[in-house]
């Protein structure tokens, strides 16, 4: 007898979501409840971060990723991530370790020190892929259609590339997040430079450039008068949300209507909201408050 149902996953929260933006974790747990899948929490460590740790010491990056993969392997569970960084690291390390014997032998020697062995028998999934697979079920579950709302979606680099390994969508012309917004009856609006990186990767090492990159993106989103920016990664979330607050403070620029900032929402939050969950505490923890609830009220959809 298998220990878990067929639709069971090890929920990989990562560091940024539980330790900084717990409202994304809460929303994800709520949204998951609406569907027929089970999740299990395991004592995972940092994924680790595909940029910082991999740049500092690539072998450590692979060994720590393998350590996490082993924890899920021991439970016979695929991993479900809520963050592009965790998704990229675990997927790429999993593939490298599965297909490159030299690397696997080396890493397993390191893991031997802590009594673990990478076997390569599980898959890594991003929660967005799972929601997309289940999208035909969503229309019947919607309690709050988002028909009056315009959203600017941002996929994030580490959800799409390296495309050969991640295989999530077309790396230059992805559609699955747009479709997931549409399934909630929201409008996913086109905007220029949609495929451009958010610049979060150089936030710590080259802050002025990081700011210029996000300014480029925000200027385009601003032109569309979007009600919110939809992301699927906490690092993109931070870049868009803190980015706007810092740009307002340091440069006096805002990109939303009436001198306001544009709210930023992780797709799991948007979905949980549309499914009818009470999201007041989650949305209350955002630094940029949501402004589109007025529109929802007009449509008689109830408040956040």
């Amino acid at each position: 007898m298998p220990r878990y149902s067929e639709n069971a996953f090890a929920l990989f929260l990562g560091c940024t979501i539980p330790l900084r933006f717990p409202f994304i974790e809460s929303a994800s747990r709520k949204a998951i409840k609406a569907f027929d899948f089970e999740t299990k929490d395991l004592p995972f460590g940092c994924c680790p971060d595909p940029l910082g740790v991999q740049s500092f010491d690539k072998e450590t990056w692979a060994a720590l990723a393998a350590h996490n993969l082993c924890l899920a392997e021991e439970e016979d569970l695929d991993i479900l991530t809520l963050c592009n960084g965790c998704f990229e690291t675990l997927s790429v390390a999993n593939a490298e370790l599965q297909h490159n014997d030299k690397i696997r032998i080396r890493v397993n020697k390191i893991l031997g020190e802590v009594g673990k062995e990478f076997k390569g028998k599980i898959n890594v999934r991003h929660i967005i892929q799972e929601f997309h697979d289940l999208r035909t079920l969503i229309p019947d579950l919607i309690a709050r259609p988002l028909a009056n709302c315009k959203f600017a979606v941002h996929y994030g680099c580490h959800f799409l590339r390296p495309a050969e390994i991640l295989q999530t969508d077309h790396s230059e012309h992805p559609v699955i997040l747009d479709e997931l917004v549409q399934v909630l009856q929201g409008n996913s609006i086109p905007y220029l430079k949609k495929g451009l990186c958010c610049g979060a990767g150089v936030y710590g090492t080259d802050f002025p450039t990081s700011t210029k990159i996000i300014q480029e993106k925000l200027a385009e989103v601003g032109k569309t008068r979007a009600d919110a920016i939809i992301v699927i990664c906490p690092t993109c979330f931070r870049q868009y949300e803190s980015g706007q607050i810092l740009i307002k403070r340091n440069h006096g620029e805002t990109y939303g209507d009436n001198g306001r900032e544009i709210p930023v929402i992780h797709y799991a939050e948007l979905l949980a909201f549309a499914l009818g969950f009470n999201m007041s505490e989650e949305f209350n923890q955002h630094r940029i408050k949501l402004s589109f609830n007025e529109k929802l009220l007009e449509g008689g959809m109830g408040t956040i």
Partner: protein
Amino acid sequence: MAIQSMDKIVCQIRPCYQCGTCAGGCPVFRNNPDLNPRMLIEKLLFGQIDKILQNQDVWNCCFCLTCSQHCPQSVDLAHILIELKNYSAKEGITPKSILDEMKILKKTGMTFELSKMVLKRRKKMNLPGILPPDLNGIQKILKTTGFDDRLNSSLAGKQITETSEEEA
């Protein structure tokens, strides 16, 4: 998986015909010309690795992988830059923000510490407690891979100059 030798890296960039596609799509280059992916390849081909590692420019790559995805010659520059950053870290040139992250990783097994405010927020949403990672195991791994030595000497401002290890 250890740092690749310079010869190996140069081998991988040989197909480059200097079209500049990598630079054209780079989110950093358009805003900070100090990171010029095409010129980086040129310097590497001419063996000017010392010049490249003289400053922290390689650390200004945000690892978006656009260059690797777009290159008509399949040069995986994003990962070559990861190798170069590893070289740079070995030389003790790691930027402070990265070192700070590594310190927290070693201390907690995560890259953020749990603050009282977040704990309160988690309680308000009835979230379960955070499962602590296997810190002992993680720290053992950090010791075995040489991460610890690299971090300690980087923090002490010392440079590690031993020659790079060829892939096993």
